[in-house]
């Protein structure tokens, strides 16, 4: 009985300060450990986002240090009724992301399947496949700009060996976005392949063997066994790469410059918002476009998550 009484905690007020602090820290350790990260997130994410939201409701222009008025949703109305720059930018953003993602998934899956089973020289092949991934996007943009140069670029020179006439590539507004989608595919397919390969490596052999026993051919095994089992990994790859592709800026700006080229032919939402902010100094409108872009990304993530829940 006495021993039990000794183990009963004393009221905090009776404890020495150090022990009191220790007890408090122990009780609140989840906040203490998470505190620094939460402060980091608040400082670097929430505050800028909140400030962008505030600016989007103002007529701030020329300098953010100048006086500005709150104008409600005027900037949002202006952006959403702008059929010259905003909506075409939305279209290009979706076309670029959709196109890139589609081919990256197919090619990434092919590469992952090829690298799945061990073979001689696999390490070397994996290293070569991953090389585009480690290059800086701006450097990649500059390199492809030179390769696609219509008059002296290697790509047209290469085509001429087979009698194919020179193509304008980045110089033509009709082909520039497709050309840059190709560059994105070239650079980021390895990442998708890497994610899918990780998923494939974790798959159990048993369902494959069972299907084989049932007489399923390679395609049937892939389509009816591998793909359904890989669905969570595929969705993770779509989510990661999709969000990244939506936000692409570097290769577009490095190859076509301000405004997404002379005809705004590769102007995505990101490039458009950058131009509004850095070229036109229209901080209110630029912030509204960025908030709309943010909402668009959230909506896409939501749709993908719903899809995942529905299929699981």
């Amino acid at each position, binding site marked *: 009985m006495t021993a039990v009484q000794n183990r009963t905690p004393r009221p905090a007020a009776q404890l020495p300060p150090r022990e009191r602090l220790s007890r408090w820290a122990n009780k609140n350790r989840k906040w203490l450990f998470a505190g620094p990260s939460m402060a980091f997130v608040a400082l670097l994410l929430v505050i800028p986002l909140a400030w962008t939201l505030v600016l989007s409701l103002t007529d701030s222009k020329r*300098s953010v240090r100048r*006086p500005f008025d709150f104008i409600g949703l005027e900037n949002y109305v202006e952006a959403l009724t702008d059929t010259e720059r905003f909506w075409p930018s939305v279209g290009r953003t979706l076309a670029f992301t959709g196109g890139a993602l589609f081919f990256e998934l197919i090619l990434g899956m092919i590469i992952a399947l090829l690298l799945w089973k061990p073979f001689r020289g696999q390490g070397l092949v994996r290293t070569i496949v991953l090389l585009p991934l480690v290059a800086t996007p701006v450097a990649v943009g500059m390199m492809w700009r030179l390769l696609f140069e219509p008059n002296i670029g290697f790509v047209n020179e290469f085509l001429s060996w087979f009698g194919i006439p020179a193509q304008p590539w980045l*110089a033509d507004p009709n082909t520039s976005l497709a050309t840059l989608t190709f560059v994105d595919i070239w650079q980021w397919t390895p990442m998708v392949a890497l994610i899918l390969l990780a998923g494939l490596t974790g798959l159990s052999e048993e369902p494959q063997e069972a299907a084989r026993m049932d007489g399923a051919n390679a395609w049937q095994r892939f389509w009816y066994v591998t793909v359904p089992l890989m669905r969570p990994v595929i969705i993770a790859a779509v989510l990661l790469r999709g969000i990244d592709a939506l936000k692409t800026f570097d290769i577009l700006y490095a190859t076509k410059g301000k405004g997404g080229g002379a005809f705004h032919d590769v102007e995505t939402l990101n490039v458009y918002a950058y131009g509004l902010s850095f070229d036109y100094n229209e901080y209110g409108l630029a912030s509204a476009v960025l908030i709309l872009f943010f909402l668009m990304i959230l909506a896409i993530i939501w749709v993908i998550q719903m899809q995942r829940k529905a299929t699981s």
Partner: protein
Amino acid sequence: MKYGSSAARVFAVATTAVVAASLVACSSDSGIDEGDSIEGTTIRVTLANHVWTETIKDLIPEFEKESGAKVEITQLAEDQLSDQYNVKLNAGTDEIDVLMYRPLQENKLFADNGYLANLTDQVEGDKEWDWSDFQEGPASLTTYDGEVVGVPIITERTVLYYRKDLLQAAGLEVPTTLEELEAAAKAIHEANPDVAGYVGRTGKSAAVTQLSAFLYSFGGDWLDGTDSLIGSDEAREAYKYYGNLISGYTNATVNPEMSWPEAFAVFQQGQAAFIADADSLYKNMTDPSQSTVADNVGFAAFPEGPAGSKPYNVAAWALAINEQSANKSGAWEFIKWATSKATSLEMAKLGVSGARASVWEDPTANADYPAELLEAIKVNGQNGVGYDRPLVIEVAKAREIVGEPIVVAIAGGDVDAAIDAADKAFGEFLLEDAE
């Protein structure tokens, strides 16, 4: 309700109190005290990639030795420089003491935003340094609301670069009119299908400054007050002429995003017969390490159009002091040295054309310039117009609007429709810009 202004007032009062308490010894309103020793201080200078920068960098050790101050240089390409200013000056940084900027592009905007320190007392107070020696046109471009906010360092005019060998082979004289220029471009391209008759800037924004010489020479202009003039018959002629000159006499696919480095590269590689661009960049053409046609480059005054020869003659770059700089005295000492008669003369001898009248008059200053170029500079200087883009606050936006028909003209589209649309948009922009 002006939320920003009340916040700014509170901030200004607080800042003023702190600054007033800590700078009691400072006697000048602008924060520049010429009596202060700058020995041991660091002057942070942000400069553009330019011939001026490369040349002054070799002379800076002299300044450091004389003053005892250390100069830290940040050097950036034009676009990155603009972005850097947009971010840093907008945030009220004190990390920049001296900034190199484009008066025609940024003077109004920066001064209106309060980014630039008022240098009026300094430039007018030093008789030996002599502000009155600066050419009137360039000096007026670095003045805002009666206050001097910058000191011009580079002046430039449109000069016609041409290939001597190609002209000689075709038996042609150097063109003196725009009609002759087009005829020569056509004749040379027909005789040399791999060579473009003319190359020039094609980028929507970049081409505006080079179109200006054609626009003025056809009798056109950008604006009159808040009225757009780009829909005039003269302007339409100029747009069509420029577009056809670039795309009409070449077999190559025209890159629609060329600024001067890309356009110069075509000429330097021997793939074009003519280019009209800034004379301050001439060393890019005559330096054999950059140009394969260095020995065959000729220079001529801008050809005459229906309204005469009207190239631009402008201050392309200037130096200013960041209003938030903590070392304004050091910054001013640097500017004073970099733009002094002695340094300007030395720079001119190294091929950099400044804005001091006395240097242009000094026969030793330009001894190394090609004689033909000097003659072209003289003629262009007499005929020159003091601006090469619309003089508004939001220049970048204005350039995109008036540049749109250039791109369409080069691509062979419906130029009149593009001009109509741009004229309307520019008119609306001018009203907004003037608010």
